[in-house]
């Protein structure tokens, strides 16, 4: 069984017991434990089930590479699935439950899949669920969905807060082991601004566990003093609990800082996403030990040798009383030695190498450990827990020589440098034959803006597994990193370390090398996704020669650990099956983030009110206080209608339309875009931007204009007023101001940069209120100060004056078909004017109206709306707006495009009104169909509805639509199907269904 030892554990505080629960059981650990070490201390070796076969799973590793130890963590608003037990710090009150099983961890129905494992080979889902087609949706998918998934999705709102942090540094060092510490120190000594980050809570990496001698002192001492030196330097920032998540172009890096996961009661954000701009980046991310592929290597109790050592040294936890060590290198001997020194039993070290005789091997023998060379494991015994191993000759086919009883296995297949960050941004790898590993190719680094490499990899991540080489490499790289910036690199001498001689590792991709199919079907490569040696070999036989295809076919490396343990073993098996050398098979792509980061951190503070800051008009408070319902328009929330007590929104819209047509409606039009275009060439410029002529507009007059892109499509419309000889005010659609301003700047800066024109967006400088209806003039006259008579201020004119004591511009323009004035005042005066209009207007029947009434009234008048009648494929000619297109101008944006054959095609769908025969309202987005069918057997479409409303004025549905040769088909009745297949009959009519003569707006 796994248990807590009586002594030892450099990271735990035995004086501080910590209670937590796992699957409802209350367990006890110590401050400083990870959830993994605390579970092992409580003999909770089995902690989950695998994804496909629901096999029992125990902890394999001790860090970020752990593939099995995933739990649901926390409750309610703090619930989080897929938390990795090896990187979760223990705290009082922690609640965890295991995942991917039903009804319980110990008894799981899904484990039946394991019995059928040989019927569920690689690509099973692809092969099985293709036919018959209809089964996918109704049978296979629901079944797979039910059985799929590891953790549960959270149901509650996340109670925690998150934030982003921006940092600019000369040198970013990722990884706080001895390589990272040394690199940071060397870089900092030259004066560079250095940020050093470490994903765990502790500095020193593996050296802190194995404690080699550095500069004549124990590594632990060297780590402590180096850390103190770094902390004392003003140009160095140190952050632990912070993982280098991704490297991107031009020195950009993302890091994920976990601020309160280890101390949930702490106030402040839970995670922080660091967005770092670094001149140079040094990655000192270490290496990850590889499993060995032997039958039963997935049984709980089989751990990486280094992890087993970590649990002993760091937490005083043993995985078992009797541990068999199986290895292809010298490093695993350290685990055997640590076990024996902790008073535990190592029945044997099985070394796959025919010969090994370094100081570590001798030390193990001297401690009385039985060392068997040229041997491997034929099979692990036990199902939920290791009970023993069968020994075989590595060179053979798996004939059992001997069985040894044990309750844990420590395996080591060598080490893989963590090259992820280097690879994220295009750094290339080379295959190191001697160490059987991919390591960074320094001659092909990720390139920065200057075309030079900006990333250096140091230490174990660079393939140096010996202490002395690690430190020298780190110091050299730091010097090189700052050479470009500092005149003389003053990083100082690298510390010196003594490393015992080691016998070279020997690659072992199968154990034993001639294993039978039966054994290969029990050799796990990917523990979480249940990918075995036999699956990869099958994929190769079926023609999956590319490593990327084989990965997707078998799901190798696609589990939540992203192949940190399985990648190299898997591609070695593929390479052997394809009879192609490993470097030619290559690796799959490393993609950020290095380990999963929270969605909360990605979002940062951008949630709720800060997700997209709302723009507010000066009248927003009034709308909110008067019961408006709102709709999003651009970044505003505009009043949709103002329902009264007992009134539905629909009723309110009807009332608002009728009231505006009969008395007065007040509309907050402040969101309308307002661009000032000024300068000696402003008229010439506007003549290029609008389809009609704006330069000829007299001062004091208004003109409706259309704007097209240079490929002819209508992009915006609005009324232009000429303010003075060299100044025009261009109104844009709500939400269009920024876009049209950018459009103008683009043409001014990039095409006609010699023209003297200045554009200013003054949208929010003004409040604009539309006073609309037959009594509008009477209301403005009541307010007094400006002559708004028909003679003084005719339709499409504007006047400046002081209205109700407030300086104002009054535009006589109409989007409703009624007598209408739009009054613009300084934003700060908007509310005062609105209050006066409401107060003085009450006796005349004035009421506010919202955007829906606005839409209904414009549709009754046949006025187009950008975004309804246009969708980026519509030209003004489609909308019958030829009257607003100049025939005389030599050029305007879109003119040449509108001459192209397709644009001038008489078959283009053209705007008409649609009058339903029975008065019904046509559904939004409906299509009109004609005679005949298309290639799919569907009725041909001959048009689409662009705007459709119930018209309170006419008491029936009205609509506009684009219809094939529409204007030539006036009076014709066409079919418009509803979604349920029923047909609405609609007659093609003029789009203007209200006051065709325009007498009302001209009143």
């Amino acid at each position, binding site marked *: 069984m796994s248990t807590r030892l009586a002594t030892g554990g450099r990271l735990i505080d035995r004086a501080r017991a910590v209670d937590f629960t796992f699957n409802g059981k209350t367990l006890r650990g110590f401050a400083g434990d990870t959830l993994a070490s605390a579970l092992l201390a409580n003999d909770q070796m089995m902690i989950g089930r695998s994804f496909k076969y629901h096999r029992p799973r125990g902890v394999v590793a001790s860090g970020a590479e752990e593939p099995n130890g995933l739990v649901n963590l926390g409750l309610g608003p703090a619930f989080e699935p897929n938390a990795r037990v090896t990187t979760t710090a223990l705290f009082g009150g922690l609640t965890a439950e295991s995942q991917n099983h039903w009804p319980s961890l110990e008894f799981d129905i899904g484990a039946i899949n394991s019995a059928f494992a040989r019927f569920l080979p690689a690509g099973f889902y692809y092969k099985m669920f293709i036919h018959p087609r209809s089964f996918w949706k109704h049978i296979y998918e629901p079944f797979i969905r039910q059985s799929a998934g590891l953790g549960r999705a959270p149901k509650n709102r996340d109670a925690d807060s998150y934030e982003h942090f921006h940092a600019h540094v000369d040198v970013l060092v990722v990884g706080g082991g001895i390589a990272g510490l040394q690199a940071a120190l060397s870089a900092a000594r030259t004066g560079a601004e250095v940020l050093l980050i470490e994903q765990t809570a502790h500095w020193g990496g593996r050296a802190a566990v194995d404690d080699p001698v550095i500069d004549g002192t124990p590594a632990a001492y060297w780590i402590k003093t180096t850390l103190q030196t770094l902390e004392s330097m003003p140009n160095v920032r140190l952050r632990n609990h912070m993982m280098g998540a991704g490297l991107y172009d*031009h*020195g950009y890096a993302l890091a994920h800082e976990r601020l309160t996961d280890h101390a949930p009661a702490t106030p402040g954000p839970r995670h922080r996403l660091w967005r770092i701009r670094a001149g140079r980046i040094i990655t000192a991310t270490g290496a990850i030990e590889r499993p060995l592929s032997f039958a039963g290597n997935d049984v709980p109790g089989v751990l990486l040798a280094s992890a087993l050592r970590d649990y002993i040294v760091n937490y005083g936890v043993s995985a078992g009383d009797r541990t068999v060590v199986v290895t292809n290198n010298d490093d695993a001997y350290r685990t055997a030695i640590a076990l024996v020194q902790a008073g535990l039993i190592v029945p044997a070290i099985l070394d796959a190498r025919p010969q090994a005789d370094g100081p570590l091997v001798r030390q193990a023998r001297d401690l009385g450990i039985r060392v068997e060379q040229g041997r491997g494991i034929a099979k692990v015994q036990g199902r939920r827990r290791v009970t023993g191993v069968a020994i075989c000759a590595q060179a053979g086919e798996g004939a059992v020589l001997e069985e040894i009883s044990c309750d844990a296995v420590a395996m080591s297949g060598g080490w893989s440098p963590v090259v992820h960050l280097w690879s994220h941004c295009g750094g290339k790898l080379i295959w190191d034959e001697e160490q059987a590993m991919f390591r960074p190719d320094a001659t092909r680094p990720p390139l920065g803006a200057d075309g030079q490499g900006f990333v250096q990899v140091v230490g174990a991540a660079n393939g140096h597994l010996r202490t002395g080489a690690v430190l020298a490499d780190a110091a050299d790289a730091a010097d090189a990193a700052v050479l470009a910036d500092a005149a003389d690199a003053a990083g100082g001498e690298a510390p010196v370390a003594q490393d015992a001689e080691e016998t070279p590792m020997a690659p072992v991709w199968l154990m034993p090398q001639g294993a039978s199919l039966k054994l290969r079907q029990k050799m796990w490569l990917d523990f979480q996704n249940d990918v075995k040696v036999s699956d990869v070999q099958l994929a190769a036989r079926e023609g999956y020669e590319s490593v990327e295809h084989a990965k997707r076919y078998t799901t190798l490396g696609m589990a939540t650990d992203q192949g940190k343990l399985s990648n190299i073993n898997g591609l070695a098996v593929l390479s052997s099956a394809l009879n192609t050398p490993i470097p030619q098979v290559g690796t799959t792509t490393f993609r950020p983030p290095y380990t999963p980061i929270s969605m909360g951190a990605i979002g940062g503070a951008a949630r709720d009110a800060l997700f997209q800051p709302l723009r507010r008009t000066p009248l927003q408070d009034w709308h909110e206080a008067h019961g408006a319902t709102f709709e999003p328009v651009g970044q505003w929330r505009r009043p949709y209608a103002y329902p009264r007590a007992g009134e539905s929104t629909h009723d309110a819209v009807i009332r608002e339309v009728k009231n505006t047509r009969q008395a007065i409606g007040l509309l907050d039009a402040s969101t309308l875009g307002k661009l000032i275009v000024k300068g000696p060439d402003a008229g010439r410029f506007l003549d290029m931007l609008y389809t009609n002529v704006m330069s000829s507009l007299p001062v004091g007059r208004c003109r409706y204009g259309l704007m097209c892109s240079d490929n002819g499509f209508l992009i915006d419309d609005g009324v232009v007023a000429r303010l003075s000889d060299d100044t025009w005010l261009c109104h844009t659609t709500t939400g269009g101001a920024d876009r049209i301003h950018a459009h103008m700047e683009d043409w001014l800066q990039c095409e006609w940069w010699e023209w003297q024109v200045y554009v200013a967006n003054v949208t929010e400088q003004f409040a604009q209120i539309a006073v609309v209806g037959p009594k509008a003039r009477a209301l403005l006259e009541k307010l007094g100060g400006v002559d708004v008579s028909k003679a003084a201020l005719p339709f499409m004119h504007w006047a400046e004056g002081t209205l109700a004591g407030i300086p104002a511009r009054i535009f006589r323009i109409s989007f409703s078909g009624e007598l209408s004035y739009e009054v613009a005042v300084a934003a700060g005066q908007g509310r005062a004017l609105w209050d006066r209009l409401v107060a003085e207007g009450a006796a005349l029947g004035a009421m506010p109206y919202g955007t829906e009434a606005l839409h209904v009234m414009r549709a009754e008048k046949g006025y187009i709306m950008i975004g309804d009648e246009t969708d980026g494929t519509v030209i003004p000619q489609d909308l019958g707006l030829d009257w607003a297109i100049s025939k005389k101008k030599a050029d305007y944006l879109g003119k*040449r495009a509108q001459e192209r054959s397709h644009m001038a095609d008489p078959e283009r769908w053209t705007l008409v009104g649609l009058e339903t025969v029975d008065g019904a309202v046509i559904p939004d987005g409906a299509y009109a169909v004609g005679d005949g069918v298309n290639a799919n057997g569907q009725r041909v479409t001959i048009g689409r509805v662009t705007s459709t409303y119930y018209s309170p004025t006419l008491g029936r549905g009205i609509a506009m639509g684009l219809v094939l040769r529409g204007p030539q088909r006036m009076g014709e009745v066409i079919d418009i199907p509803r979604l349920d297949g029923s047909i609405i009959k609609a007659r093609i009519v003029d789009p203007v269904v209200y006051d065709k003569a325009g007498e009302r707006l001209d009143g």
Partner: protein
Amino acid sequence: MLTLHCPHCGTLAAETELTAGGEAHLKRFGPGSDDDSFEGYLFMRENPKGVHFERWRHSYGCGKWFIAARCTATLEVFGTYPAQSSAPPQHIRDAITARRPGWGWRDLA
């Protein structure tokens, strides 16, 4: 995530401050142009692996347009200059030549 030097305000701007505007140095064809010229102006674009000239706007900075000469394969930036240029200035061409001898782009070399 590119960083580009804005030649107008001098800022080293992150990509999030910038808006991409597509290929630079297009010659506009208007009314009276033949179909091929107009099609070329409106639709046909270079798609080089290597040296390219692109328009960028410092949208969340000074608001000015500029042109970046960069390598589409390595993202190396050879230089930036104001959009008020009908052709790449000589010092930009020299910078490219220094890094990519024998480069070509449209009719430039």
